């Protein structure tokens, strides 16, 4: 007989870890105290960090930074707001630390990322067929 994996007691641990992860997802732009999240998930801080890393491959702090950078990437490509404003909107406290982490994670500065994304977006609008493989374009009747 097959064993249901969810019947393992570990499921309760995962629920608590997921709850903490979703808390970060929803509050990434606020000053987040990881001690509070560990407490919220009913873990000691070190136990929490270990289990979180086991589940997501990153520590809670690294994951929070990833979320902030990912949100910044979306804003940089879509919005016409200054880089400094985006930096604070996603939860960083200084433009310097935001820019250096952004560059470390993506290999380029926020300004260069914005230029690249805007160029790509403009091309998508002007020449959308450049992005559609021929088989899909022809079956859909999309021609230049």
């Amino acid at each position, binding site marked *: 007989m*097959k*064993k249901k994996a969810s019947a393992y007691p570990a499921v309760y641990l995962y629920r608590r870890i997921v709850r903490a992860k979703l808390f970060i997802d929803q509050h990434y732009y606020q000053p987040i105290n990881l001690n509070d999240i560990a407490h919220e998930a009913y873990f000691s801080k070190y136990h929490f960090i270990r289990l979180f890393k086991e589940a997501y491959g990153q520590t809670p702090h690294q994951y929070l930074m990833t979320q902030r950078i990912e949100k910044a990437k979306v804003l940089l490509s879509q919005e016409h707001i200054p880089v400094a404003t985006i930096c604070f909107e996603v939860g960083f406290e200084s433009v310097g630390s935001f820019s250096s982490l952004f560059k470390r994670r993506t290999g380029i500065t926020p300004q260069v990322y914005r230029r690249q994304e805007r160029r790509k977006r403009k091309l998508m609008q002007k020449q959308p067929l450049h992005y559609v493989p021929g088989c899909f374009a022809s079956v859909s009747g999309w021609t230049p």
Partner: protein
Amino acid sequence: MITKMSHTCIYVLDQQEAQDFYVGKLGFEVRTDAPMGSNARWLTVGPKEQPDLEITLMPIQEGIVFNKETAKSMRDLVKNGTFGFGVFETPNIRATYEELKAKGVEFVKEPTEEFYGVEAIFKDNSGNWFSLGEKR
């Protein structure tokens, strides 16, 4: 020699709702969003960890591909869960299962030990189903 698959296609009932599901619930990112005339978008998404795959969210609508009758048949088939479109992998199926469930994703099979690993099955918001697997 074929080395990999770069694009694949999922038929969906509503393109915008599908985007909300794949981005908002599964955590995928939009790869391409290009307007194709007044009533169509070329919209592709993919898992953040797999940048070289584009999954096209193709709406089922009357046009060149489907006529009125075949569009209705296709919509009914998708809604009724006729199609399984693939397998997504996760390094931690129990955490992913709990997270997607918390976000309201419908599972038709909870994580279960199989000979190849642990597998769950979920449906997208059109009715297409997918396996979610953690390899051994």
